[in-house]
């Protein structure tokens, strides 16, 4: 189908874009990569009166490290993030997740900020942001503010970003030295949305005991979810079979993923268990390997 008519503006500065959005009084929508919004408009599920195209605003793009933190401009293409040396070296969980986001042709256009603002329950980037304890910067004519990932995702496709706000950057703090990470998902085809997935970041001490753990599930609930009980169970322990089984049980006991043509709720729950187990096992192993390498180097 074809989208309904709309007005279009492509401002060159953030200030102009914010003004246009404010003036549209709720009838305006930001378009970034358009890889989620345009299908919605083609189906006429979304009918914005004004599209504010943020792709021509230079300050919204680019990947940099600032005060040790990773700062990804909102309109940075997912494909560029995938190729980034800064991300691959410092935030490997994001690098591991990015190839699972849609197909190359979609990542060439889709943006990091757009994925976060869209807040699909199965979006890889959202789950990584939550697992790393990151945050977003948003701006409006009223001012700028930061939103912690833990306060950002409130429902399926719903965030705490207001209609007159533009997400300007995604910010991720540096993981502690010796952190191992892993990302696993099940999808019908490479590039399809995940039926279930897990992102894990684990820091271990010299004896292989967990100091810090972060586990996030995607596709298991209306938003990506951090699994605090499982994380707490891991801290202070080595990853024995019993510890892993208990952590996975704690992580998945209360999930009720939706049933649809792609998979039943029961199947998705089992898949989530398996993905959590794989992600944790690999993250522990990588942390141990990293610790070994740093010992050798010193």
């Amino acid at each position, binding site marked *: 189908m074809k*989208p309904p008519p709309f007005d279009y503006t492509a401002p060159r500065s953030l200030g102009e874009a914010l003004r246009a959005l404010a003036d549209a009084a709720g009838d305006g929508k930001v378009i970034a990569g358009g890889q989620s919004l345009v299908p919605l408009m083609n189906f006429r599920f979304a009918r914005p009166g004004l599209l504010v195209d943020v792709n021509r605003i230079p300050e919204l793009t680019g990947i940099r490290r600032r005060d040790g933190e990773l700062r990804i401009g909102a309109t940075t293409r997912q494909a560029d993030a995938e190729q980034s040396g800064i991300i691959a070296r410092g935030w490997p969980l994001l690098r591991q997740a990015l190839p699972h986001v849609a197909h190359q042709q*979609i990542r060439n256009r889709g943006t990091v900020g757009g994925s976060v603002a869209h807040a699909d329950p199965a979006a890889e980037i959202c789950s990584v942001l939550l697992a790393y304890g990151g945050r977003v910067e948003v701006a409006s004519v009223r001012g700028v503010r930061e939103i912690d990932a833990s306060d950002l995702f409130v429902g399926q496709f719903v965030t705490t970003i207001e209609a007159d706000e533009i997400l300007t950057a995604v910010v991720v703090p540096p993981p502690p030295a010796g952190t191992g990470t892993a990302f696993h998902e099940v999808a019908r085809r490479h590039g399809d949305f995940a039926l279930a997935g897990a992102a894990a970041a684990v820091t271990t001490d010299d004896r292989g005991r967990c100091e810090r753990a972060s586990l996030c599930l995607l596709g298991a609930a209306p938003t990506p979810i951090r699994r605090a009980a499982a994380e707490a169970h891991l801290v202070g322990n080595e990853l024995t079979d019993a510890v892993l089984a208990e952590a996975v049980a704690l992580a998945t006991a209360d999930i009720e993923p939706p049933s649809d043509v792609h998979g039943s709720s029961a199947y998705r729950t089992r898949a989530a268990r398996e993905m959590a187990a794989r992600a944790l096992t690999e993250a522990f192993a990588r942390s141990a390997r990293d610790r070994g390498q740093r010992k050798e180097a010193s």
Partner: protein
Amino acid sequence: MRVEINLNGKPFAADVEPRMLLSDFIRHEACLTGTHVGCEQGGCGACTIQVDGRAVRSCLLFAIQVDGSTVRTVEALSDERDGALHPLQEAFRECHGLQCGFCTPGFLMSLEPALASGPLDDEQAIRDAISGNICRCTGYAGIVDAVRHASNTIWNDPDIGTVDDLGSLGEDAPRSGAGDE
């Protein structure tokens, strides 16, 4: 609104409504019907073209968004060779990489930049590279063969392969660390 682009090496301009999809702009304004439209939701890949050297879905872009950009469609492949087939097209013909041909332009435009950045001969790597394109006829086996064949032609025979042409495409779209500052 006025849209001015470089289309397959030549300037092209038209006045269109903001809601005109790039796929429709190419087919109905520029009258280049090699770009096919299947789903208009990003899923099938038939509409894949290249904007500024990168393979993208033309059904998920509004024409006004690419004002000032360089757009390449499947017609460019043989136009640039005075009507002769591109090695990738030759390989699809040779290996039965198509039957009805509806999906083929999307496969070609997706694969051309992928092949320009390096050989593609491993089965899994080929299957990953074509995962964003659906074919309802071939069962993919012929397409996988065609990609391997094209990769061998392009990367092993400098005379046939015109790696230089393809290479310059790659430079327009620097991949490695492009977003880093």
